[in-house]
């Protein structure tokens, strides 16, 4: 038998699979924002299963194969556990708004600062360097646990992992670029019960990470114009705020979806919010919190030096007040407003006391 014939027999073309493909004739067309994830939710490809039985990692809408291996031990396989209505939008926005800490921050505008101010900035950068990757590590872990049927939500989390890597990187760069250095770690993000890390349920994790933790940090980043000492720092905080806003939006929209589709879990979520609010007011996870040493650093930065500490404190109180106000808005938007009306939450009273 010649080699050519041998090859032909061993590697004969098989086209039987063509009859077993998924729904045919999908022709998504680009809109004014290009061809988005939302645009390709056409026909059955847009159908989201309430409970996913996908254990093989196949893309949603592909034909299942009876002899495929069950490689996906997906613990998150119910829509209400992870879904949000605007996942496609958040993911596409994340792609459009990526930035580079190497080249998009005007590092040349850094100028030597008084020692105490540089130390304050470096303490804050050490804190952010430490906490930003909680927000990267933890979503990463949940991606691997989530069925690929919820591709859109997983892709938003993937974008968050990228964003947080960049945040960690930009704060490290800042600490090492202006005559300072890293300082003592805060330890605020370590493993204790009720921490973002150890949550064994996605919504619990998201409540702590996206709504409480990142919400508080977002307010701070937005105030970066006030405590940034130069254009490099102001740019850094502004760009980080842009990313952080997407992460917070994920949490709010997910909580809203979960509350609407799994109301039996609302009381449990209220308990997570109880714990998160304690942390927001007094815990070390909030860099502007009453018990965190970064508050002192912030007061120095806000005042412009230790001599203006009082003035800095007054501005810090404005940040705290704004944190509380924005937190309440997010929780209300997520559909959990009752806690602010029935006395369960300490936040309204704390907010009132900042007047």
């Amino acid at each position: 038998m010649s080699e050519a014939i041998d090859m032909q027999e061993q590697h004969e073309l098989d086209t039987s699979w063509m009859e077993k493909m998924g729904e045919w004739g999908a022709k998504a067309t680009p809109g004014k924002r290009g061809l988005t994830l939302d645009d390709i939710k056409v026909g059955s490809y847009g159908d989201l299963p309430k409970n996913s039985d996908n254990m093989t990692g196949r893309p949603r809408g592909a034909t299942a194969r009876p002899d495929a291996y069950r490689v996906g031990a997906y613990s998150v396989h119910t829509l209400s556990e992870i879904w949000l209505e605007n996942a496609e939008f958040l993911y596409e926005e994340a792609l459009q708004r990526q930035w580079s800490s190497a080249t998009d921050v005007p590092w040349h505008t850094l100028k030597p600062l008084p020692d105490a101010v540089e130390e304050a900035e470096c303490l804050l950068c050490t804190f952010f360097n430490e906490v930003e990757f909680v927000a990267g590590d933890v979503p990463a872990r949940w991606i691997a646990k989530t069925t690929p049927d919820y591709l859109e939500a997983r892709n938003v989390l993937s974008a968050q992992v990228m964003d947080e890597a960049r945040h960690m990187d930009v704060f490290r760069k800042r600490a090492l670029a202006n005559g300072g250095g890293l300082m003592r770690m805060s330890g605020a993000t370590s493993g204790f019960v009720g921490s973002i890390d150890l949550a064994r349920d996605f919504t619990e994790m998201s409540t702590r990470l996206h709504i409480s933790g990142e919400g508080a940090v977002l307010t701070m980043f937005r105030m970066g114009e006030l405590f940034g000492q130069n254009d490099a720092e102001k740019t850094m905080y502004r760009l980080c705020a842009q990313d952080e806003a997407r992460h917070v939006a994920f949490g709010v929209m997910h909580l809203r979806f979960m509350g609407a589709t799994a109301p039996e879990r609302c009381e449990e979520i209220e308990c997570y919010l109880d714990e998160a609010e304690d942390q927001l007011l007094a815990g070390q996870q909030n860099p502007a919190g009453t018990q965190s040493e970064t508050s002192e650093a912030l007061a120095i930065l806000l005042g412009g030096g230790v001599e203006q500490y009082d003035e800095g404190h007054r501005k810090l109180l404005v940040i705290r007040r704004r944190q509380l106000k924005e937190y309440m808005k997010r929780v209300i938007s997520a559909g959990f407003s009752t806690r602010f009306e029935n006395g369960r939450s300490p936040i309204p009273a704390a907010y009132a006391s900042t007047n």
Partner: protein
Amino acid sequence: MSENEPSKDSETAKPIQGVPNPTYEWMGLTNEWGIRVKPGEHGLRLGDVNVGIYGEVPERWEDQTRRPRGALPRPGIPPLPYSLRSKHEMWADCAANLYEEAIQRRWIPATEVPWDLLAELPEDVERSVCQICTELSQCANTELEIITYWQDQMSYGYFEVKQYLATATFDCARHLEVLRKRALSNGGGLGLESRGRVNRMILESSGGWTEAVVYLYLLRGTYLTRLLAGLLEYAHNDAESYIYSHMLEDHARHLTYGYDHLKYAATHHKGGAAIMRTLLAIGEGMFAAEIEDPIVKSAMAIIFGGGIEGGRTFGMERYLLLIREFLQDYLELCSWLGVDREETLHPKLKQYLEI
């Protein structure tokens, strides 16, 4: 003297309602001060700030907290479950540069792929392209899931690798997105799912990240490079060219990390090369079985041959050439890594070298 000047004695400090008097206990707490890294012609890159103690990468990182490398530890912080704490388990010297490169080379499928240039294809060809998109989606999904499974188990002492892997996570999400968009925008649809032999092998690499890298990049990744290069060569329009060329670019970074890490592990971990040899002996058998599956083989042959008829002759020959080229690459890489496979290559794979 200002009442708020740094002082351990804050008795004279003016009390501010709701805010403890400053202690400034955090001031001066640093391992190394006075770091002033300047941006170079490519901006301020991650590797640039590896100066002084901040650039010292230890062989073993015992700290199980999120202490940034170089920051001062804080006693009493509960540990987190980081299982990878030795340099040889994840390190690659190129990680910091790859991280910055990934950011500079980001791309946006929604708006940068010229979707309007997709043109109708003969149905057999469209079905083949869609089937390959389905298969590649599952490869990207496997890569995403295995990276995110290991990512949060990697210690902070090696944050450059974690940061680089964050970019790879995002790349995988983008590949999932763009392949789905291609399959659903030209009158086609998704295909039949993969049986998933190699996916399973990669996902079941739970002994360590290095073991996963052996399968993910050395075996599967080297093959995918040839596959993507083949698709690029036979792309039907500029939209497909854009997709495959950018996927190849991303993939090249992933392989650079993978090969570099395996080289590091093989040379810095006693017995590492022997373990790789054992893994490859098993993996080659699984891989050989996977490429015997007629679906990918036939779909690629049809793409290369411009249709079913061409697929039976030239197309299949071209695909078999692709496999031979992959095996040549693979054997060269194994030899470079010091895990020579030429003599012991799985017999079923050897056949492809003899065609």
